């Protein structure tokens, strides 16, 4: 009975593969125009190194990059699922990361508790910051896109002010960057290099494979369950597919907007933590910006489904890792950006094309069924 669903999934996968192939074709033009060889470029993208050490390092790079992007995609998708455009993930995660890092740096607690406090603080901060546009929309009719964009500006400026002023930790002489006081070891997330070593592989260098990967995976599963299996998830989906029908079916749009927005913000609050708890130990002026905006692209690519988002985040991680080897292969960094842009573009197009194709297929199948004689035993 689930053939229809399987067929849709198969089509999606097929479309994604076609998109990536097509994107490589388009990128080749840019690479040739830049005077390099597309073959070299392709080799560079898939060249993870000759020794196991290098391969492990490169896989770690991809996973460490994909982890925050996956969370960002999830945060955005929660809103998107009900046509709620939370553009404010950007601001929410920065505020949340700053507050969580600062609080974490002030505390001295046993490790598991310390970590839990930091994670909870981040989620609460992100959720509260997302509550503002939700309330504005529900009670004042302010469009959430406008509200969240404005709140992004406020968040970015406020975070910049706080990290240099009230929340700033001690600064070394001659260093121009500032950051919050460092989080003690008990608040840092231990790395999960054992994921490699248990297979007899060498541990990655640097800060290793960020432990927050585990949290991200758990959050992904939880969000999937919430969206796909619960009554709340059903109401989110119904609101997104057809707001008036949801309303007529007894779904309270106000409750839905507020809860979806706050959930989205709470998840957004986690975006900055992999980096902070895995590597930097503080929120600083060179904290990675823009993950909230990238999350929009990730969610779009992943079609707002946790599984798809995970794949999209890995694709982004893969592409970002490729920037360095491509530069070693004498492909200018700007061409690297073009390749990345082309792939994203093609996947979005392929998504839309396969979606429509699948729907048309389905219409035809049903039409074929309707014109066939009524099944035996059916009675009017």
């Amino acid at each position, binding site marked *: 009975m689930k053939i229809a669903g399987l067929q849709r999934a198969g089509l999606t996968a097929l479309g994604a593969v076609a998109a990536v192939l097509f994107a490589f074709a388009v990128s080749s033009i840019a690479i040739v125009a830049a005077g390099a060889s597309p073959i070299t470029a392709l080799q560079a993208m898939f060249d993870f190194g000759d020794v196991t050490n290098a391969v492990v390092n490169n896989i770690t790079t991809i996973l460490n990059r994909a982890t925050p992007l996956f969370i960002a995609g999830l945060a955005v998708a929660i809103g998107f699922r009900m046509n709620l455009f939370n553009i404010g993930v950007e601001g929410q995660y920065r505020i949340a990361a700053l507050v969580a890092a600062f609080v974490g740096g002030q505390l001295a607690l046993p490790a598991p508790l310390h970590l839990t406090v930091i994670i909870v603080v981040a989620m609460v901060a992100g959720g509260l910051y997302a509550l503002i546009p939700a309330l504005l929309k529900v009670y004042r009719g302010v469009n959430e896109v406008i509200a969240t964009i404005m709140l992004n500006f406020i968040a*970015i400026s406020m975070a910049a*002010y706080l990290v240099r002023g009230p929340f700033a930790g001690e600064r070394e002489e001659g260093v121009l*960057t500032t950051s919050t006081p460092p989080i003690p070891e008990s608040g840092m997330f231990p790395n999960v290099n054992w994921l490699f070593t248990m297979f007899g592989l060498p541990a990655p260098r640097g800060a290793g494979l960020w432990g927050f990967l585990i949290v991200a995976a758990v959050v992904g599963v939880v969000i999937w369950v919430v969206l796909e299996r619960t009554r709340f998830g059903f109401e989110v989906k119904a609101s997104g597919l057809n707001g008036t029908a949801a309303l007529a079916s007894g779904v309270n749009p106000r409750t839905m907007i507020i809860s979806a927005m706050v959930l989205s913000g709470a998840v957004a609050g986690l975006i900055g933590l992999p980096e902070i708890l895995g590597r930097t130990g503080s929120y600083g002026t*060179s904290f990675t910006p823009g993950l909230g905006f990238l999350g929009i692209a990730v969610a779009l690519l992943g079609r707002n489904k946790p599984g798809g988002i995970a794949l999209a985040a890995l694709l982004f991680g893969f592409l970002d890792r490729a920037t360095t080897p491509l530069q070693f292969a004498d492909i200018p960094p700007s061409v690297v950006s073009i390749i990345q842009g082309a792939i994203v573009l093609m996947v979005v197009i392929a998504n*839309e094309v396969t979606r429509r194709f699948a729907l048309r297929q389905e219409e035809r199948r049903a039409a074929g069924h309707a014109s066939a004689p009524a099944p035996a035993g059916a009675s009017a």
Partner: protein
Amino acid sequence: MGGVTLLRNKFGKLAISTLAGAMLMAAAACGGSSDSGSSTASPGASGEASQSGSLKVGLAFDVGGRGDKSFNDSAYAGLERAQKELGAEIRDLSPAGDGSNRGELLRQLADAGYNPIVAVGFAYAADVEKVAKEYTDVQFAIVDSASNGPNVTGLLFAEQQGSYLAGVAAALKSKTGHLGFVGGVESDLIKKFEAGFLAGAKATKPDIKIDSKYLTPDGDFSGFKAPDKGKIAAEKMFQDGADIVYHAAGDSGQGVFQAAAAAGEGKWAIGVDADQALTVKDQALSKVIMTSMLKRVDNAVFEYIKAFQGGAKGGSDVVYDLKTEGVGLATTGDHISDIQDKLDEAKQKIISGEITVPDKP
């Protein structure tokens, strides 16, 4: 049957607009790179670390660094000079758009056998510190930030001193008694430029009026690559009566030059870091550049590489100031030759210590 039209929902529209956005991004990336091709000593040498003892110098730019016709390109000029004069094999890398892989770049360079490695920009401070600990046998240098490890050299500049001279020149040349300063990002580094400029101008003409504007707050580095914002800020200053605007805004300075050119006769801009009257290719723009506050990153990079060859080790800072010709004013176009004696006088006073230039406004 009308199913297809029903699918034209909000989500579809969003997908379309995201496409448009992605295309714009790609186009922008394309435009920015038009004259900044990658270059290396030996193409195809990627990956394999040759332990032949030859000099292999790696350099990592910060976000949007490459091709700014200013600070970063100046660093690259120093690298090229090392290639020519010292026979170094060179490799430069740029990070991902959000700078998330800065540390990764340094590690890749170290893994590929590059030593020394120069990180351009203070944003590298934390990453250099970490990576330097992982690769103790590799020497690192960081531009605009202090040394934070035994194998790290800090390459610092007394920007306030050069900016002081720019302030003196602007005050002397201004006919309206009204100047402007456009800073890219409101960070402590850029405040050094503002502080010196203000001090120099006020010391020359105490009643002079100076408008200051930062394009983005600290932490938001987009202010260094937003020519449109730079243009708007400078346009406002020219409209309000300023006739000379000094910028310390990286790529955004292009907008300041455009505003000066559009404001007409008698309006000037002062460039920064590189001799921008030379590096800016557009004639209409380069002729409004009265002078540039030179920050000789090229010298610093080259000297560092040379010192490395001579066996120097890290752990300390090198400050490039007026005395060491690390900062100064460019004379291209001869717009300031008439006041050269006054500038020299101020310079001497700073060198001798008679004037101490503040580094905070």
